[in-house]
């Protein structure tokens, strides 16, 4: 019997979230190695056929949509009950979800009852030669080591995967697959917690979804100099992140914090300004695609994980860089002006 590989797609207001397509990339690679069918499971209400077809276009052989008004928005108890029923009925070999606030709540809750093994926040997945087991690799101890974990006996083998740790699958037009819609029993949809409201974050505050990040550390010295970092962020089309030192001083609020006790980010570009690169900070950003750092200390840890580093004062580098990015022609004269004014 071919193995069934499941990914758990996420949607909001009927639209699939980008991370769903990253999971299809992961799922397709695993299914190809294992020799299995790729299923995309999704919870929602009245999901559009065209939206579900996108999952098939991007690699799913089958879409399994569980639909009910109670599943329109993420409700942990209802989703967990339904997911458990689906697992028990179909016995997938592997279940992969995103390491989002949704996946990191739903999967452990479900794994406990399913008596399944679960690995959190993986950055690599593979299939072991011979045994066909899922090899799940994740950073541990603040990213200082990587651990590969497997789950020999219990099924499904479950993992959450770090968002942005792989490219989203691209559509292959004309791909065919099956769409199964299931309507769960009302008794399975009861929940002891209900949502009463939602306060959206201002767009610029969302560091986890940002493609580019300018991140400030204690090297910015005082909150007034944040304008400099903001200007660079604007020039790069980036969001603003911070080290814990900056957040603890109240210069930026907690949602900006990156690291072990803050958020984990995997942007395409990370630019650190006056960030030393402590292991707790690195734990939250070292999987960024490109890392750039500006620091006065040539020995700063951040240079160990950077692709490009400037040893120098951010107060000299950043204004010049902004000029250079905005108007390469004018950069020289403006730099001279800045320096003449003694920006420091």
């Amino acid at each position, binding site marked *: 019997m071919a193995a069934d590989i499941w990914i758990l797609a996420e949607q909001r207001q009927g639209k699939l979230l980008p991370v769903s397509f990253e999971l299809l990339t992961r799922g397709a690679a695993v299914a190809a190695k294992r020799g299995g069918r790729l299923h995309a499971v999704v919870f929602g209400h009245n999901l559009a056929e065209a939206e579900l077809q996108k999952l098939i276009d991007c690699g799913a052989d089958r879409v399994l949509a569980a639909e009910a008004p109670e599943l329109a928005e993420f409700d942990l108890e209802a989703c967990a009950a339904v997911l458990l029923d689906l697992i028990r009925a179909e016995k997938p070999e592997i279940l992969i979800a995103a390491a989002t606030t949704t996946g990191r709540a739903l999967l452990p809750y479900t794994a406990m009852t399913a008596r399944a093994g679960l690995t959190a926040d993986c950055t690599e997945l593979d299939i072991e030669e011979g045994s066909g087991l899922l090899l799940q690799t994740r950073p541990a101890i603040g990213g200082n080591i990587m651990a590969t974990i497997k789950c020999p006996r219990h099924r499904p083998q479950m993992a959450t995967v770090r968002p942005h740790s792989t490219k989203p699958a691209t559509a292959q037009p004309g791909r065919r697959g099956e769409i199964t819609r299931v309507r769960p029993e009302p008794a399975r949809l009861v929940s002891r917690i209900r*949502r009463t409201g939602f306060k959206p974050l201002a767009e610029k505050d969302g560091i986890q979804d940002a493609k580019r990040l300018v991140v400030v550390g204690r090297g910015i010295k005082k909150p007034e100099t944040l304008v400099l970092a903001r200007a660079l962020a604007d020039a790069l089309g980036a969001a603003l992140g911070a080290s814990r030192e900056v957040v603890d001083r109240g210069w930026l609020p907690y949602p900006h914090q990156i690291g072990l006790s803050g958020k984990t980010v995997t942007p395409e570009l990370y630019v650190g300004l006056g960030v030393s690169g402590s292991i707790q900070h690195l734990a939250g950003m070292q999987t960024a695609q490109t890392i750039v750092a500006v620091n006065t200390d040539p020995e700063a840890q951040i240079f160990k994980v*950077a692709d490009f580093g400037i040893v120098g004062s951010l107060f000299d580098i950043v204004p010049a860089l902004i000029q*250079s990015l905005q108007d390469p022609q004018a950069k020289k004269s403006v730099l001279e002006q800045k320096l003449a004014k003694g920006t420091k």
Partner: protein
Amino acid sequence: MRILVPVKQVPDTRTVRMDEKTGTVIRDGVAAIINPLDLYAIEAALLLKESCGAETVALSMGPPQAERALREALAMGIDRAVLVSDRAYAGSDTWATAWILAAAARRLGEFDLILCGERATDGDTGQVGPELAAALGLPVLTHVNHVTPDGAGGFQAGRLVETGEELLAGTLPALLTVVKEIAEPRLPTLNGKIRARRETIPVWGQKELQLDPASIGLEGSPTRVVKIFRPKIARQCRLVFGGDERKTAAAVNELAAFLQSRASA
């Protein structure tokens, strides 16, 4: 109200060092501390105790020295503590840990609220909280930034997700995992420290909990660590030096060109 706070003892990551030759973590001489994120759960419990009146209990599973973490919780103001420790529990993954903690929680009686840290800084999984809730048949909310019981068996809470803050209402009992925003942890008082030193902390093991060996320790853990390795740092840092005006300008030019090449790649 009764509130349970599961706390974990973890190595102090500030002092964790790597053996550059072998690529392993040097644990010798590394201080053990209370999981920093659990301090927020303790603080939230103490605030609820002050505002609505509650008995607060700290629970930890770990080696005998994990008792130190519990004394710290007592020093902050937690009323009593229980340590779960047994050789048979060594090697437990998050599933087995939650299973054992659930048995200990049941033995402690009914709780209205269980407050966990969002995750432990060593394993960094954040799984034990939701798993413990499932094992006890409780509803769970993760990433909670505020909670207010309404005094009539219900509560209101906020949950920080990627795009904003969810507002929720639920019924007790429930398990919440809390984030830093919930409250700033207090420091232990001198009186607290004195009381914490005197308090006896019961240690429960297989004799008390009598768990099926198939559900505990390495044997009861669905997951197996097969390999631990040093992440290969594939990055080669191009390091340029600023300094005087000319050097700064050159460095900045090179960086701007680098950024543009990456943007178009």
